[in-house]
């Protein structure tokens, strides 16, 4: 079973690599939006908060799009039947897929982040800290987005509207991210722990709720 689990991870990794073109397109859109944002405010003196908030909102949308796309492709009814009848629980499959989506998004962010910071006129000394901040918060964003996606892709259109209820779960991430950037040089380890704690909370509930929604709404 363990051998097949690792085989599953490797297959999911291959699938993730094949889905990279979509991530690339999304990050290109992010760069274009950042450029428009920067150009439109070129005569204003901005601190780090405004561009970072903009970056966060864009990353939030990118994650939502990416998770929605992967879920609608990889959790259609026929595949879902096989996942449900698999000896691996659906929660484990959801967890592995979420982690692969996370890896895909964060690797692209690491690659594009220097360019994004230059466009947004943010000093590159913050590069590492912004990457760490985003790597930590993106984990929770992907897991919450998976709950949203599992409801949105349901066959019942009326119920898919209830996915809006999951959106407030993103708010603490945005609040804490902005709170960290308010502190001088982002230097506070305890604040980073929030993201870890919030991720662990999501890890406990998100795969369970996602797989429950997939089973009940999409089969």
């Amino acid at each position, binding site marked *: 079973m363990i051998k097949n689990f690792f085989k*599953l991870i490797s*297959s999911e990794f*291959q699938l993730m690599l*094949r889905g990279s073109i979509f991530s690339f397109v999304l990050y290109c859109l992010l760069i274009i939006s950042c450029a428009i944002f920067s150009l439109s405010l070129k005569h204003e003196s901005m601190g780090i908060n405004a561009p970072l908030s903009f970056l966060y909102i864009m990353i939030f949308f990118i994650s939502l799009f990416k998770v929605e796309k992967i879920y609608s492709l990889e959790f259609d*009814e026929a595949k879902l*039947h*096989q996942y449900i*009848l698999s000896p*691996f629980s659906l929660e484990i499959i959801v967890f592995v897929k979420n982690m692969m989506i996370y890896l895909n998004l964060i690797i692209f962010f690491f690659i594009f982040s220097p360019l994004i910071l230059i466009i947004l006129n943010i000093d590159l000394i913050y590069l590492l800290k912004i990457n760490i901040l985003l790597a930590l918060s993106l984990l929770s964003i992907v897991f919450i987005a998976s709950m949203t996606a599992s409801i949105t892709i349901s066959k019942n259109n009326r119920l898919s509207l209830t996915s809006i209820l999951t959106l407030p779960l993103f708010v603490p991430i945005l609040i804490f991210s902005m709170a960290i950037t308010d502190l001088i040089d982002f230097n506070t380890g305890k604040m980073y722990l929030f993201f870890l704690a919030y991720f662990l909370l999501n890890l406990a509930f998100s795969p369970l709720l996602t797989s429950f929604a997939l089973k009940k709404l999409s089969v």
Partner: protein
Amino acid sequence: MIEVNNLSFARGNTLIYKNINFKVQPGELLLVKGANGAGKTTLLSNIVNFIDPLKGSITYNGSEIDNHTASQSFLYISETNFAHDSMTLNQNIEYWLSIHNVKFDKHIKEKSVNYFFQQLNLDKKFYQLSFGQKKKLQLLLLMLVNKPVWILDDPLSGLDDRTIINVNTLFEKKLENKGIIILTSHQNITLNNYKTLKLE
């Protein structure tokens, strides 16, 4: 043995079927027939515990079918295809074998692939295959995943004559080994002994 008692199912306010009863013993095949929309696929989904019935019970070897029983004992092949379009045929086979936790035996895999696909290049992307070839990938699981009960939704549609004979041979072998097969089909199957359930 699979036993279905007084099974009814409704979708919204529409009753799909009412008070269905049947038993399928090991070594038996049940062919579910009926017009489009009669509830054949829904009945299979009820048996595999994908959806809950309105009333009635479904048992396998005396106990109610739950998710654990279904994943341990049932192999379900749906009408629509489950493979990943971006993967090759070979990668798809390996992916779905790992999902079903099948011990990978290269010899058995080659033999099974040859049984269905003959000389087909396994490095072809899945989206490049024809409907029938795609269907064969689903049926390949019948040979590679060892579960006592097969629940098959229209497994013969889109297949050529030679493959239909091959699938019927697989059915015969399964029944000889005391397996249970429940399938829906608009086509007749070539086996001599099987039960039929007609949904109105």
